[in-house]
């Protein structure tokens, strides 16, 4: 077995998870413990000094979480991964490892709204700034990069607009500038798109969404692509310089092509602390076992719903990359040919009031602020997540008065369509 690389569905079930050697438990046990007993003082010293593999304390590593980490690393084709309490904390630890005060990130301006807030506002307190670029005009990335830029950040498939980014072209630019490309792959998942194969250096996820897939557990992860040379320009001192946190260890030299994941763990997670609960790791792992089946069905259902809505008299436009006439269809065919995911936006005839009426009349769709559940979900951003903005600001953010976002679930697609039809009717 080990001589052939197993297929995606095999990895989704097996990667990282051997039977428990002391009990024979075949499902990964939930190691719901804070701490782990040392064999002796020397063993403890080896663990604290990073000289031996093993667990000390669940803030840093946990055997249930480790299975999740290895599983996602394998699915993304990375060298290692670090799971965190949420998608946002994965972003925090990733950038904390890359950035010093005064540095900046060049990011696509089409990102999940929460990420835009994090970059614009929260990161200021760390002395980090963001420069926005337009994924539909790659020159804007090049123009934004300066000597203090430490990373490019994009989403493979942007939430919510259905925008597919040209990962290879942006990666070429990042390589030319000697900075890593960080890709949030939450909306596509590695089933639809594997950014590392297209040149991404680091992949992030909110595991809260399609990876867990059942709307029951928060989680995030950082996947190390293993390809970036952290020592080349000396611009990433957490990786290339002796670290006082560990008596002068140089992480890149010691851990080679998985040093980034280790640095996020031992310098980021250890000190900042957003550890995922082992119980959540277990729930997400169980979800990942069916990722290939779910993601295909999500995408197939969403395409049928999008096709139906694009012919609907009460719908003015649909933004979904799997539709042949969509602006991002060619990029979708290149980067995620199996499907364009579950989430898209459309515009209702009648604007704000029609959007409010639609969400309030749904019976099957749940009105809430999430994506990536087995259930179909709907939200009218202008009256909820974006209600504090002016109309102009709403439109600029892709949350104009007529915009409705759905995350198509795994129910019978006829029932999903019927619910939207009845809710759109007068």
């Amino acid at each position: 077995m080990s001589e052939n690389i197993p297929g995606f569905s095999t990895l989704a079930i097996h990667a990282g998870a051997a039977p428990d050697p002391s009990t024979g438990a075949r499902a990964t046990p939930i190691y719901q413990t804070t701490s782990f007993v040392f064999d002796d003082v020397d063993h403890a010293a080896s663990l604290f000094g990073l000289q031996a593999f093993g667990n000390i304390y669940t803030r840093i590593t946990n055997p249930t979480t480790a299975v999740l980490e290895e599983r996602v690393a394998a699915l993304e084709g990375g060298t290692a991964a670090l799971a965190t309490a949420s998608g946002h904390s994965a972003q925090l630890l990733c950038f904390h490892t890359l950035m010093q005060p005064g540095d900046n990130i060049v990011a696509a301006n089409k990102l999940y709204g929460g990420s835009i807030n994090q970059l614009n506002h929260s990161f200021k307190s760390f002395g980090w700034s963001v420069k926005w670029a337009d994924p539909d005009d790659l020159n804007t990335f090049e123009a934004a990069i300066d000597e203090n830029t430490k990373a490019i950040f994009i989403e493979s498939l942007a939430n919510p607009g259905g925008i597919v980014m040209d990962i290879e072209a942006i990666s070429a630019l990042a390589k030319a500038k000697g900075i890593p490309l960080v890709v949030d792959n939450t909306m596509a998942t590695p089933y639809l798109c594997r950014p590392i194969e297209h040149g991404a250096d680091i992949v992030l996820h909110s595991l809260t969404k399609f990876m867990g897939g059942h709307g029951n557990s928060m989680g995030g992860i950082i996947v190390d692509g293993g390809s970036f040379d952290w020592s080349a320009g000396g611009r990433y001192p957490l990786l290339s310089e002796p670290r006082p946190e560990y008596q002068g260890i140089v992480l890149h030299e010691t851990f080679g092509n998985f040093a980034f994941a280790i640095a996020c763990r031992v310098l980021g997670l250890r000190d900042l602390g957003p550890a995922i609960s082992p119980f959540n790791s277990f729930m997400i792992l169980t979800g990942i076992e069916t990722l290939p089946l779910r993601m295909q069905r999500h995408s197939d259902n969403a395409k049928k719903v999008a096709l139906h809505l694009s012919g609907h008299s009460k719908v003015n436009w649909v933004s979904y990359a799997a539709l042949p006439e969509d602006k991002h269809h060619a990029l979708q065919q290149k980067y995620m040919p199996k499907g364009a995911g579950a989430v898209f936006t459309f515009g209702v005839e009648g604007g704000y009031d029609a959007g409010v009426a639609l969400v309030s009349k749904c019976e099957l769709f749940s009105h809430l602020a999430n994506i990536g559940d087995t259930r179909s979900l709907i939200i009218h951003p202008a009256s909820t997540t974006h209600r504090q903005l002016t109309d102009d600001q709403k439109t600029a953010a892709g949350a104009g008065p007529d915009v409705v976002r759905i995350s198509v679930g795994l129910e019978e697609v006829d029932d999903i369509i019927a619910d939207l039809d009845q809710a759109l009717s007068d």
Partner: protein
Amino acid sequence: MNHDSYSDTYIKGILDEVKTVAMIGASANTVRPSYFVLKYLLSKGYDVWPINPGQAGKDILGQTVYASLDDVPDVPDMIDIFRNSEAAGQIVEQVLQSGKLPKVIWMQLTVRHDEAAKRAEAAGIKVVMDRCPKIEYGRLSGEIGWAGVNSKTISARRPTLKSGFQHRGLTGKSES
């Protein structure tokens, strides 16, 4: 043989077969990679003979340090090289001339000398380059997964336990 990638069977065969390791470039500095590997290999039951002319006669982790390969107690099963690629080539040349041939010559991460490898292989020595035995042992035993690292192996069999709580071995007998 192709040195761009190695099969798990090849690497595991080496780690199973080898009992004694001469480590060229072993450091007494507790945060250097060679110190990590020395400590790890000792914990897995290998006899490791550190070689470092600057430390000769002293000991590292309880092991006597030797000035050169000529001084170690016996012909080692494996020579593990923590030097740069050029130095590694010279070491291979000296080994071949000495006639005291190890079963394996292993060069650490970033160390690679294809010409030297060819000559060593022609003399019947197995060669591994640009790899770390600690990482490979951790990968094949499953220990490395505890750090979230992709072991690139899957198995539905029982992992091999060694003594103590968090201590795995390669396949074979469990110790406890």
